[in-house]
């Protein structure tokens, strides 16, 4: 039903809904929320490309679609290339692409499909300067295949191929800084965002819409199934990721860094706050937590310096 007019002006997100219920995402899924927000921001005049990932399933099995927008399913590593082709075709066919009334070309890929197998196509898309928006929803592992580590999995995390055990065989590498790789392409606009802060995410999506050229948003997107966390804590965990500076919110726009609310608050909470609801971190020792905390501190300091120097 229509949302009452009296209510609409009090909403902090666009009222219209272009993401259908009845989808088969897990309970408490961050990715489905993210996709819902993307369609709220861009509406129906959007072509979404989804590679192999949880969203392949979430988007509906044939003959049903969860999206009230055009969607092309593609192979794992090809998001960057497919959106390049779609953008080129739209231009060849005389459509306006991007901008207020243009067609929005959106790549929606997971962290594995972006940071690992899709990195080459992402790089090509970025450096060629296509008018499209690439969103990496980051749930920090290969969830669709049953929770295997990706380049974006954090230090100390349990996954099915970093299962801990007697040898303490957990993820031993810190999370790959995909956004830094993206920024190295000197694209006009890149940002981090979180499903816990949808107003900020939608503001960034709208900004990406206005700015010509390629845009990239890394969306922090909890996965209760893979993170071994209670389904009702998804938003809380995502909020804590920001509040602990584990996943700070910031923008990179034409060479300038800007840290966004609420990451601008001075003192981040200790990393344990972020870890507490998540079973995937339960094998971490005190030393492990300290190593992760130091990494967070270092990265956070680096970002603050970047914002101070190139703000």
């Amino acid at each position, binding site marked *: 039903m229509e949302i009452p007019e009296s209510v609409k002006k009090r909403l902090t997100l666009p009222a219209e809904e272009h993401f259908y219920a009845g989808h088969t995402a897990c309970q408490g899924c961050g990715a489905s929320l993210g996709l819902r927000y993307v369609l709220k921001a861009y509406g*129906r*005049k*959007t*072509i979404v*490309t989804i590679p192999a990932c949880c969203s*392949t*399933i979430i*988007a*509906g*099995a*044939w*003959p*049903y*679609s969860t*999206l*009230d*927008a*055009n*969607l*092309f*399913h*593609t*192979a794992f*590593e*090809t998001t*960057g*290339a*497919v*959106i*390049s*082709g*779609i953008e*080129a*075709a*739209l*231009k*060849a*066919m005389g*459509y306006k692409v991007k901008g207020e009334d243009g*067609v929005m070309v959106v790549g929606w890929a997971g962290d594995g499909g972006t940071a690992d197998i899709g990195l*080459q*196509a992402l*790089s*090509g898309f970025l*450096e*060629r300067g296509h008018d499209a928006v690439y969103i990496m929803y980051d749930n920090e592992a290969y969830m669709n295949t049953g929770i295997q580590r990706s380049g974006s999995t954090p230090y100390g995390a349990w996954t099915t191929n970093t299962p801990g055990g007697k040898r303490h065989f957990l993820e031993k590498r810190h999370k790959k800084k995909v956004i830094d790789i993206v920024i190295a392409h000197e694209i006009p606009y890149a940002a981090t965002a979180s499903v816990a802060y949808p107003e900020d995410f939608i503001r960034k999506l709208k900004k990406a819409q206005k700015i010509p050229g390629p845009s990239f948003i890394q969306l922090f997107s909890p996965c209760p199934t893979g993170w071994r966390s209670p389904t009702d804590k998804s938003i809380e965990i995502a909020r804590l990721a920001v509040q602990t500076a584990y996943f700070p919110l910031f923008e990179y726009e034409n060479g300038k860094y800007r840290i966004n609310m609420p990451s601008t608050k001075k003192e981040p909470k200790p990393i344990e706050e972020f870890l507490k609801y998540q079973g995937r971190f339960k094998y971490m020792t005190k030393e492990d937590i300290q190593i992760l905390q130091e990494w967070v501190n270092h990265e956070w300091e680096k970002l603050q310096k970047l914002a101070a120097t190139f703000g």
Partner: protein
Amino acid sequence: MEYKPIRKVVSGNYAAAYAVKHARVQVVAAYPITPQTSIIEKIAEFIANGETDIQYVPVESEHSAMAATIGASATGARAFTATAAQGLALMHEMLHWASGARLPIVMVDVNRAMAPPWSVWDDQTDSLAQRDTGWMQFYAENNQEVYDGVLMSYKIAETVNVPVMVVESAFILSHTYDVVEMIPQELVDEFLPPRKPLYTLTDFDNPVSVGALATPNDYYEFRYKLAKAHEDAKKVIKDVGKEFGERFGRDYSSMIETGYIDDADFVFMGMGSLMGTVKQAVDLLRDEGYRVGYAKVRWFRPFPKEELEAIAESVKGIAVLDRNFSFGQEGILFNEAKGALYNTGERPLMKDYIVGLGGRDFTVPDVKAIAENMKAIIEKGELDREVEWYHLKR
């Protein structure tokens, strides 16, 4: 408008590029690879000169070339790409995607041998290894057929919504200058109207999701649809080939081009540029009294089973010339042809000659030597061996 061809001396690759321009292709996404590169260079030159408005996407790999071409074609544009050998192998996954999504993409593959050892020369194993990807395959004998093949392929592909690979030989066609009759743009436009897509991604009021998960309850039916499209394509290929002949004087109404079949004891059967040399040699052999003919397989997919049966009915032997090999078995065309005939009851003596791999030159004297061998086999009524590595240094 009366058809007055524009005759140019161009390489096979330039013939492909001209055909792409004349077909009013809208998007080209391609990656350089020897010996394909001069196709995209020529297209880039057309764009630079303002001769075409093609959107050119200089992708970072062949895998992305096919992926971007797929994105463009799904959106609704007429799209093209080109590659060779390693590049085609890298595309393999996405070839399935193009046919499964029923996108009428046309691609030129310049037949080149697979490494290692490195080789940039002619060999059909790269394209034949893509046999089961759901693409149609057209093998060009000469530069003219590269040009004609691309134009006809768009019409055929867009009728049955199945992609087509137009295959030409490395260097032997790609870099050889030859006379090509080109068709004035207005007449190409009459022959090949703008694409009418099966679906697009630009109907924003009635959005669709393409390629979603299909359960075991539905996947099977979509495979049948693609299988049926290939079967239906045979008639479309013949009709379009006939129309092309009526309009432009070069008839392609048969999927296998034959010569001297009626009174031949045996025929040479093969695909691509080597059949030009075979035709030349057959004329000479005829002068010398050999009852020999040729059967040039133009379309490998869909496979022209019915036409092959008719040939098998009228000859005693078939010498299959395979510039390719399926390891652990035999030449690929040989294997296909034998399989196609099994249930027909036609049993000509068939021998497989593995020739020209990796660009080994296959000459008129070679054809004559094989004719000699084949003649002896037919006189004796039995094969000396089934598969012969013809050029092998012994």
